């Protein structure tokens, strides 16, 4: 009898529990796929212009139509912008599927990156698998509004482009948390992804990179400069074009490795950079060489090594002399190998004048399907 009474008391729960405070119905949720942060048109009224790219759910039988739309709101904080956006939407905003964050050039130059993304780090709904790009000569809103050729949504294009970045040496891919870690580990210096819009052709160009100093954008690197810098920071494949008088030879690097050897001599730091690469000759222009001759291979290896060394030196020169910012990560090598000496160095002062030597070793392993 007592058990039956207990059961009777529990029965009302069946009626009361199906509805709940935290009901998340997919049909009443507005999923944000990308967020863009720009300077507002009127800087005195708000700090940011925040653009949301929202998924527009369609039923399968409706066929291929535009699957997303964007809305922008001016606000003093990201959360305030979300609230404003929410006021104009019939569905509840959710950031659980946010995959891309784009930051416009103007605001990246003016505001500290940590301030811009502070809300995103605190939001529990968010998974941190975020692609991060800085948009050159345009607003982040323009990027998120683009009708990309392959994908229905630019954020999907950014995510997919990030998947094969290891095969392209002229781009820099640094995801959200990695970029943030770089900034924190080097007093605000880092080297992040760039996006450039080719609006006429509806394309997002991903070559090049954004350089940050004191947590603010200070310079852009073009594709060539990024390839040079990537010899020191990335493990991605590279295409090296070496020229001798009228002839051009193209070397496809399949494997590369770069080591830094920090040296402290009488309290003065210097560093030795050793680059090794393996790959294939994939293209010849002008005089065709006899690649079955070991001497020719050796000459070509030297030629490519010189070209790569020149690229690396250019990257170091740009970082040391022009930008005076160690986005190439030499400080990490010093911290790892000479932790005691590193503590006593004022790296920002030492770095621009520090001697850096470069040694390159190239190996030609094959030449495609033709000798």
């Amino acid at each position, binding site marked *: 009898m007592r058990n039956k009474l207990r059961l009777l008391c529990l029965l009302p729960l069946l009626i009361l529990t199906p509805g*709940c405070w935290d009901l998340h119905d997919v049909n009443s949720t507005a999923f944000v796929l990308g967020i863009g942060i720009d300077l507002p048109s009127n800087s005195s009224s708000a700090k940011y212009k925040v653009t949301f790219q929202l998924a527009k759910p369609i039923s399968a039988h409706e066929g291929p139509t535009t699957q997303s739309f964007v809305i922008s709101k001016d606000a003093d904080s990201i959360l305030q912008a979300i609230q404003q956006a929410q006021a104009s939407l019939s569905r509840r905003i959710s950031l659980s599927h946010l995959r891309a964050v784009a930051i416009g050039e103007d605001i990246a130059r003016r505001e500290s990156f940590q301030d811009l993304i502070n809300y995103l*780090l605190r939001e529990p709904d968010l*998974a941190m*698998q975020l692609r991060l790009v800085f948009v050159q000569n345009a607003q982040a809103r323009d990027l998120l509004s683009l009708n990309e050729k392959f994908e229905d949504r630019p954020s999907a294009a950014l995510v997919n482009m990030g998947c094969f970045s290891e095969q392209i040496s002229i781009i820099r891919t640094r995801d959200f*948390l990695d970029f*943030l*870690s770089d900034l924190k*580990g080097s007093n605000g210096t880092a080297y992040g992804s760039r996006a450039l819009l080719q609006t006429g052709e509806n394309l997002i160009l991903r070559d090049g990179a954004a350089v940050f100093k004191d947590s603010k954008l200070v310079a852009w690197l073009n594709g060539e400069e990024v390839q040079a810098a990537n010899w020191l920071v990335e493990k991605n494949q590279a295409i090296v074009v070496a020229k001798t008088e009228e002839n051009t030879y193209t070397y496809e690097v399949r494997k590369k490795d770069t080591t830094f050897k920090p040296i402290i001599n009488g309290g003065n730091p210097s560093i030795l950079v050793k680059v090794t690469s393996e790959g294939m000759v994939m293209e010849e222009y002008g005089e065709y060489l006899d690649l079955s001759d070991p001497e020719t291979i050796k000459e070509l290896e030297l030629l490519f090594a010189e070209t790569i060394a020149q690229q690396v030196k250019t990257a170091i020169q740009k970082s040391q002399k022009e930008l005076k910012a160690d986005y190439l990560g030499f400080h990490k090598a010093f*911290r790892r*190998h000479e932790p005691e000496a590193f503590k006593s160095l004022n790296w920002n002062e030492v770095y621009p004048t520090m001697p850096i030597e470069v040694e390159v070793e190239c190996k030609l392993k094959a030449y495609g399907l033709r000798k």
Partner: protein
Amino acid sequence: MPKESNVSEDRLHNRALLPLLVLSIVEYEVFTFSKSTVAAANQDAWLSILIGAFIGSLFVYLFIKLAARFPTMNYFQYLQIIWGKPLGFLISILYLLFWVSFLSSIFYETVLINKLLFLPLTPPIVPLAIFALSLIWLVSYGLIPIIRFFQLLLPFLVIPLLLLALLFIATIKLEKFLPVLENGILPVLKGTYLFLGAYQGPEVLLFAAPFFLKIREGIKTSLFAYNLTVFFGFIHTAAAIGILCVDNVRESVLPGINVVNILELPGFPVERFGLLLTLPWLIAMFTTLAIYLHLLNSSIFQLFKLTPRKWILFLVTAIPVTIAYFLPNENWHEILRLYLTVFTVPMVYLLPVMTLLLAIIRKKGRVR
């Protein structure tokens, strides 16, 4: 409410030590895995854990030796024999206070996680009350049903955590562990202390010993169980350092969930691995609360010679639940947790070892 004698006829095989220890030790760490260790030792936290594993294993071994001297008694009973009645009683009261604080902290953590991740709009009292009522139901049956329940739940905790460990291995970046011993050995040792402090739970052995058939033969199982939890701690901490990096771990409230949410496996149909932690977390919290609530409840009956009554269990549960509910904010909880971590080492590890030493000196207990 069934009355529990010290030696039940239905005694447990030593195999049951595995779920008992694993589920008692693993709790909030599922989401925070040794955050304090990383804060102290930075990228060398993995070293702290390895040293901690060795020291912790030694303690677990000594706990079994102590329990084996008094195979039909629980810790509080022989505390009074070894230390004398007044001192033994005083130490027992200290434990009760420690458990009340610990339970309050874990109840608060359930509220926090629900507020942040699972049920942000639901009034916190609702999941808290449901949790507390289901705990009272389980605890009212006594220790042996609790351990049997743990045996059923163990795979649901261990399998997702092992799966995550495999996923981590592919993503960890070794350069984030360099340089090794950047600040010398002292931060590493501090990290070891905090790691041991974060691993409350091995002392449960001392209370559960009379319910096992041959506790003296439980060394291998206990060490395996303890080191399994250490392995989870190690791999999650290594993942937090190797994926999130030290700076982000320091600032993160729930680094465990952050690091899992970053994982990406191209081509894999699942993109939110964080969900893999949901079930282990629920199990870990519930089981740790259950065992400590049982210890608190049964010890109160034992120390104050009360007749077991269900309303007393309700009252005992209400104390930490109320503290947790009225803790003003996360900062207070972090301070409480820090104090608990610091006091865990003397309370959980050193006091039992001192008790064993005293028992040997005073020739108390059975020696074989």
